[in-house]
C-alpha cells in the first residue's frame, strides 16, 4: 500500500458567496498544495459551510473560479470528483445498511485505498459493529462510520465540515491522528471546526470568515 499521493494543486480565485442579499465573503483566494491544510474559521453564520460546499462543487460560487491542477473544476468535474472526499453536516450513510455494507458501497463509488473494510472499522473503534444496522448506532457512532469512508477510499483532497461533531474526546484524537497521517502522505485538507484541530503540520492556511 503506497499512500503517497501525486502532487496536485487546488486554487480558489477571487470567489464570492452571496446568500439572499448578504455577501458572506468575496475576493477570497487561496492555494492548497500537497501536504497543506486550509482551516476555515468564523463565527456562527459566517459562511463556512457555504464555502466548503462550493469547494466540493455542490454549489457554484457567485463570483470567481476554482481550479484543480490548473483546470476549472466545473469543466473537469469528473476528474475532480475522483480526487475529493466530502463529509458534511449530514453523515451520508444509509440507516438500513450495516456498517460494513455502507463502507463497501462508499468504496465502490470512489477510488479504493486497498484498506480492508474490517480494518477501517477497527481503526474507528467500531470493531464489533460490522453487522449492526446503522439505524441502531448512536450519533457519535454514525459520525465515526461517516469518517471511516475517508479510510477506505483514496482521495488526495479531504473536505470536512465540523468532523468532530458528536465525537467523544477519544474519537476526536483518532480523527486528528488520521488527518495528520493523510497530510504527511501528501494529502490535502479543507476543514471547519469550532474546536481546535490538532494538526502537526506547520503548513496551515487559516481563513477567518468573520473578519
Amino acid at each position, binding site marked *: 500500500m503506497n499512500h503517497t499521493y501525486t502532487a496536485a494543486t487546488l486554487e480558489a480565485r477571487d470567489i464570492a458567496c452571496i446568500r439572499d442579499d448578504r455577501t458572506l465573503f468575496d475576493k477570497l483566494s487561496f492555494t492548497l498544495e500537497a501536504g497543506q491544510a486550509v482551516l476555515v474559521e468564523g463565527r456562527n453564520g459566517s459562511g463556512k459551510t457555504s464555502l466548503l460546499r462550493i469547494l*466540493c*462543487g*455542490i*454549489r*457554484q460560487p457567485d463570483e470567481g473560479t476554482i481550479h484543480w491542477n490548473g483546470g476549472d473544476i466545473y469543466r473537469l468535474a*469528473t*476528474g475532480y*470528483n*475522483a480526487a*475529493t472526499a*466530502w463529509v*458534511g*453536516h*449530514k*453523515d*451520508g*450513510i*444509509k*440507516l*438500513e*445498511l450495516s456498517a460494513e*455494507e455502507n463502507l463497501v*458501497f*462508499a468504496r*465502490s*463509488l*470512489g*477510488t*479504493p*485505498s*486497498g484498506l480492508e473494510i474490517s480494518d477501517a472499522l477497527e481503526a474507528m473503534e467500531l470493531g464489533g459493529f460490522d453487522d449492526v*444496522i446503522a439505524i441502531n448506532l448512536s450519533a457519535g457512532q454514525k459520525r465515526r462510520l461517516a469518517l471511516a469512508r475517508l479510510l477506505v477510499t483514496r482521495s488526495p483532497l479531504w473536505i470536512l465540515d465540523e468532523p468532530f461533531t458528536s465525537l467523544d474526546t477519544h474519537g476526536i484524537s483518532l480523527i486528528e491522528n488520521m488527518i495528520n497521517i493523510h497530510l504527511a502522505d501528501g494529502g490535502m485538507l479543507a476543514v471547519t471546526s469550532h474546536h481546535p484541530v490538532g494538526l502537526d503540520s506547520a503548513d496551515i492556511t487559516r481563513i477567518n470568515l468573520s473578519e
Partner: protein
Amino acid sequence: MKPATLPQAFAILLRRDLTLAYRRRSEIINPLLFFVLVTAMFPLGVGADPALLRDIGPGIIWVAALLAALLSLETVFRSDFDDGSLEQLLLSPHPLSVLMIAKVLAHWLVTGLPLLIVAPLLSILLHLSDDAMHTLLITLALGTPVLSLVGAIGVALTVGLRKGGTILSILVMPLYVPVLIFAASAVANSDAGLPVNAHLSLLAALLVLATSLSPAATAASLRISMS
C-alpha cells in the same frame, strides 16, 4: 484494488437500492397493496354493476397504477437526500446520468414490476375479458417504466424542498397523461375487439423517448436542486 468500472458502479448502486428496498420490505409490498386498494375503492364509490365496472375497468386500473407510481416516487431520492447520500452520489467520479438509470431501474423493479404481477387479479375483480387483460399487461409493461423515468425528473426537481407531499404530483401528473390515455384506450379497444397496435407502438415510442431523455434531465435537475 482498482476503482470500480462504470458497469460495476451501476450494478453496485442497483444492488444497493434493491437491498434497501428488501430491508424496508414495506416498500415492495406497499405500492402493490395500494394499487389493489385503490382499485377496490372504485366499485365502492361507483357501485357494483359488472357491466359498468367492465366499462370503466381499464381506466381505473391505469389510474391506480399511475397513483401507485406517483406515491412511491418519493422513495427514489428522498431518503438519499435526507441522510446525505445524495451529496455523495453527486460527487462520485461516475457520470451521474448513468447512476440515475440504475436508481430508476431499481425503482421500477420494486414498484412497477409487481403491478404487472397482480394486474391479472384486478382484471378478474373488474370483470375484464381475457383479451383486455392481455393488452393491459402489455400496456403496463411498456407504460410503467415511463412513469418511473418521467417521475424521477420530478423528484429530482423537488427533492430539496421542505414542502408537503403533493407538489410532486402536480408536476408529474400532467406528464403522465399521455401514457394514461394511450394505455387505457388500448385496453378499452381490445375489450371491444378493436385493433390496438397503433396505441401500443405509441406507448413504445414514449418509452424510448423517456429512456433517452430522462437520465440526463434527472441528473441536471438534481445538480440544480442540491446547489
